[in-house]
């Protein structure tokens, strides 16, 4: 191996006073003196890849992602419709002018939200203390989980550029805005406040975070651009404005005017905990006796069940929880796992919902057919979860028309064919608690389920071990109080059987609907083709007859007669009439069909709110796709007249 190929060390030398290689022959005393505490932040500076900062491009994305996650969570929890501005700027090193975006190695990331704001006292710890947060200690569905994300992003910025995290926050119009510059003390995992002051701020409420960090900006797969696009799909109730470093601005308007139902907090379900967790809970509980602890601190354990568990485990229900230790605790744990309990409550989950998924896909992806499926709640290891899937298929009528116009008119030579240039594979969009997952696709349960599904059954080509082929986007969302990620950087969902099964079921249903759509469309298409073919063939046959008859033939008459017969055979109906008759969304719930004539949406009757009501963009931005307003009347199919303006 050439020396060049050696992985460059993660330059921790300067940053971590880690133990040096020891010379041989040390005494136990000397060795004992070398033992010392490792702070969490020190650990993470060495293991930044665990948090998604493994390379500059990914670091930039992770930073944006963590800040946006927090902003969304905060706004939703406060009951405010999220409105978020993401701004990326290339900056030069050491005050030098910023180089070209593609060459830049440093970026300033600014995320502004109009959420509830943060009270002055906790600002430093939120942004400059790892494992500080509101979400870890409760079982409630949220984007963030551990309280690592934003402070890790700040720390990464600090390590790579030496710049502090700058925060402005204001909790209301009557409150002053606070400005902070904070750094993290990587040894103590405590915030260092470099500057704090009250300032004038044009925003009445909300938070602005600015982090300068080493990064790399590049469009395409797993880019910040893709993340913004996907976030807009999974959060149709949020408005995003994205200022890319190259000066482009994209606005993703809100298409749903209400926040998702706020998820409820639940107590852990006994099936979902491990022995260590049980031991800790036994020590921390406020209950005075064991049976009370079991019924109060867990969900789905009634006092009766609690008594039964105690009896079966041979532990007195009156025993003080703190005294249940060792073998007794282990026995208790095993008994609980063996006891039949009701599945955990599922009102703690807030799925995106079929209508919102449809709205999101429809807004961002051009296609001919959209559908969405929400599965009923299911449980893995005591954690409730919901799987949702969506499909967008086709290139959209405009693109189809464009392709048709662009298609080479040259007739085919022998051995040539018109097909075969269509080997594009479906794109899989993965989400966990509405957060787009951009890395480690192949290790993700969702992707494995996509591969496992037999798409050929639905008329979609698929090679072995590959996703289906064609102009298709597959959307999969998992909502859970605890999403099992394969790593701390939250990139892939762990492959639990229960989860995979739910995803597969959702995909099958979506695929089935797509199959129905494709079949119907093909049928309508075949009818129209038949008509065209007859017209063409009549020309040929009349020509042949004329030549056979040595030119003695009333051509026009024969043609008219044959055309008349053709018309009789096809039923005399026009092609577009047939399309209309056959392509409606009847029997295809939660689907949108786009034809050159317009858009068809079936609004589910049971919906409490007519949600698919896309507001027009507030201001027509130059480079974004304008939302289509799909006027949805309850209990009726709505058809918009002509296709909406685009671009």
């Amino acid at each position: 191996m050439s020396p060049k190929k050696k992985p460059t060390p993660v330059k921790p030398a300067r940053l971590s006073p880690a133990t040096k290689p020891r010379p041989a022959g040390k005494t136990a005393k000397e060795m004992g003196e070398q033992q010392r505490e490792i702070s969490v932040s020190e650990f993470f500076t060495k293991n930044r890849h665990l948090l998604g900062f493994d390379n500059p491009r990914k670091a930039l994305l992770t930073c944006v992602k963590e800040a946006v996650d927090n902003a969304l969570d905060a706004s939703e929890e406060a009951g405010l419709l999220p409105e978020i501005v993401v701004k990326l700027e290339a900056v030069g090193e050491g005050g030098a002018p910023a180089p070209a975006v593609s060459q830049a190695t440093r970026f300033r990331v600014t995320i502004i939200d109009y959420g509830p704001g943060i009270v002055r006292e906790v600002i430093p710890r939120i942004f400059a203390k790892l494992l500080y947060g509101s979400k870890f200690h409760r079982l409630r569905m949220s984007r963030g989980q551990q309280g690592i994300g934003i402070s890790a992003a700040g720390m990464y910025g600090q390590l790579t550029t030496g710049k502090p995290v700058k925060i402005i926050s204001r909790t209301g119009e009557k409150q002053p805005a606070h400005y902070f510059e904070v750094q993290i003390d990587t040894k103590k995992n405590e915030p260092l406040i470099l500057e704090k002051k009250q300032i004038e701020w044009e925003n009445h409420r909300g938070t602005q975070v600015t982090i300068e960090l080493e990064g790399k900006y590049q469009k395409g797969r797993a880019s910040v651009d893709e993340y913004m696009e996907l976030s807009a799909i999974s959060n149709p109730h949020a408005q995003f404005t994205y200022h890319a470093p190259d000066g482009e601005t994209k606005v993703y308007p809100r298409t749903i005017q209400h926040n998702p139902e706020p998820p409820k907090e639940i107590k852990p379900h006994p099936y979902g905990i491990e022995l260590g967790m049980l031991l800790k809970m036994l020590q921390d509980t406020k209950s005075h006796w064991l049976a009370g602890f079991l019924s109060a601190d867990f969900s789905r354990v009634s006092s009766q069940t609690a008594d039964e568990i105690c009896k079966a485990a041979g532990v007195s229900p009156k025993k003080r929880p703190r005294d249940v230790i060792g073998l007794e605790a282990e026995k208790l744990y095993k008994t609980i796992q063996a006891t039949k309990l009701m599945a955990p409550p599922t009102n703690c989950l807030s799925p995106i919902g079929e209508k919102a998924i449809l709205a999101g896909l429809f807004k961002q992806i051009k296609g001919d057919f959209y559908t969405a499926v929400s599965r009923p709640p299911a449980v893995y290891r005591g954690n409730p979860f919901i799987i949702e899937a969506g499909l967008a298929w086709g290139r959209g009528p405009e693109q189809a028309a464009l392709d048709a116009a662009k298609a080479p008119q040259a007739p085919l030579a022998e051995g040539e064919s018109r097909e075969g240039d269509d080997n594009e594979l479906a794109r899989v969009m993965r989400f966990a608690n509405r957060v787009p997952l951009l890395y480690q696709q192949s290790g993700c349960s969702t992707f494995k389920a996509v591969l496992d599904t037999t798409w050929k059954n639905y008329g979609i080509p698929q090679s072995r071990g590959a996703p289906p082929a064609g102009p298709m986007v597959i959307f999969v969302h998992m909502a859970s109080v605890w999403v099992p990620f394969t790593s701390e950087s939250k990139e892939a969902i762990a492959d639990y059987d229960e989860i995979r099964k739910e995803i597969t079921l959702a995909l099958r249903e979506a695929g089935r609907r797509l199959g129905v759509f494709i079949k119907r469309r093909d049928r309508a298409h075949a009818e129209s083709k038949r008509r065209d073919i007859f017209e063409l063939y009549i020309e040929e046959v009349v020509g042949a007859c004329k030549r056979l008859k040595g030119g003695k033939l009333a051509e026009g008459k024969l043609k008219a007669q044959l055309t008349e017969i053709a018309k009789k055979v096809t039923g005399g109906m026009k092609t577009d009439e047939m399309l209309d008759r056959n392509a409606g969304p009847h029997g295809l719930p939660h689907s949108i069909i786009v034809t050159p004539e317009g858009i068809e949406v079936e609004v589910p009757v049971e919906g409490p709110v007519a949600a698919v009501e896309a507001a027009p963009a507030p201001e027509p931005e130059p480079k974004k796709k304008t939302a289509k307003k799909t006027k949805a009347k309850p209990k009726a199919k709505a058809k918009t007249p002509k296709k909406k303006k685009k671009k």
Partner: protein
Amino acid sequence: MAKRHPAVEKKLVGLADLVISAAARRKDPSISIPVRSLSNVKFNEKKGYIEMGSNKQLRTFFNVGMAKKFMQTMLVADALNELQKADLTTSLREIYYRTKHTMGDSNENTFDDQAESDPVIEDLEVGLAALREEFHVRAENAGTIIGPVVFIDDGDRVDCSKLGKGGYSVPSIVEEEYLQIKKCTADFVLLIEKGTQWNRLAEDKFWRKYNCILLTGNGQPPRGVRRLARRLHEEKKLPVYVLVDNDPWGYYIYSVVKQGSINLAFESQRMAIPSAKFIGLSSADPEHYDLPRTVGIKLNDKDISRAKELLAYPWFQKKEWQAEIKRMLSSGLKFELDALANKDFQYLTKTYLPKKLKEKDWLD
């Protein structure tokens, strides 16, 4: 020089009339074409050849599945008529090129490849009860003949006993009006499957010693070769012997020469030679001629299933034939003619054939 066939011309123009009159009556124009498959042939035991049954398929214009075929049929009929008028002959491939074009303002071609146009020509042959030669369509010259026979081809005298070891290339159209048999002194015709073995016999001047005509079609003999063998048999009363490999394909070649083919069953009456004899290789020969097992080839799955098909054909029902095929199946081996070289390079010429002819060791 092609000869005009006014009857054929009339038949072709008749197709146009059919379309015109159907259209006038607002009826879907249709052409009825006899079905060319095993299900629609029957073996006429009395005549000794395969005849086409009466099953017909209606090819209608306004049926999505058949519209294109119908249109193609009309185009080919037009091209064939053009040949008639111009007094020219042509090849299947040229017919394909002549009729291929893009339709109207579409991207669709009338034909995509020759595999589409060839069957249409056969359809017309059967449907109009005309011969390919009458259509002025020829195949490639794929056969060779040598021996004491003299032809007149386009006015040229061709003496097949004076053509060295190369022989005369059999034209694809050998009807009387194109090729006349001027003189023939041979005693029999030997039709050989393989060109290599034909070469061996020609080189060894086998035909001179045994006063016979050597004919080969290089595999499945083309129409010209079959028709020429039939004419020699019919006009000059020569018996015809067939020498093929000992495998199911060899058996089938023999049966095509003798009883006609399934696909061209309508031509059997002028192609088949019901008295043709199967001279070898027989599955009994390896034993009779002491061929070692090592020069055999294991029958593959395709061979076996083909052999089983042959066993079921009505024209293989004679008990000698059942025994012949079953013997091959039970040995599990097939033998090529070339394998005789294991004994001696000239074994075929000097031992095998003389013995066979002397002992009249053949199958009927």
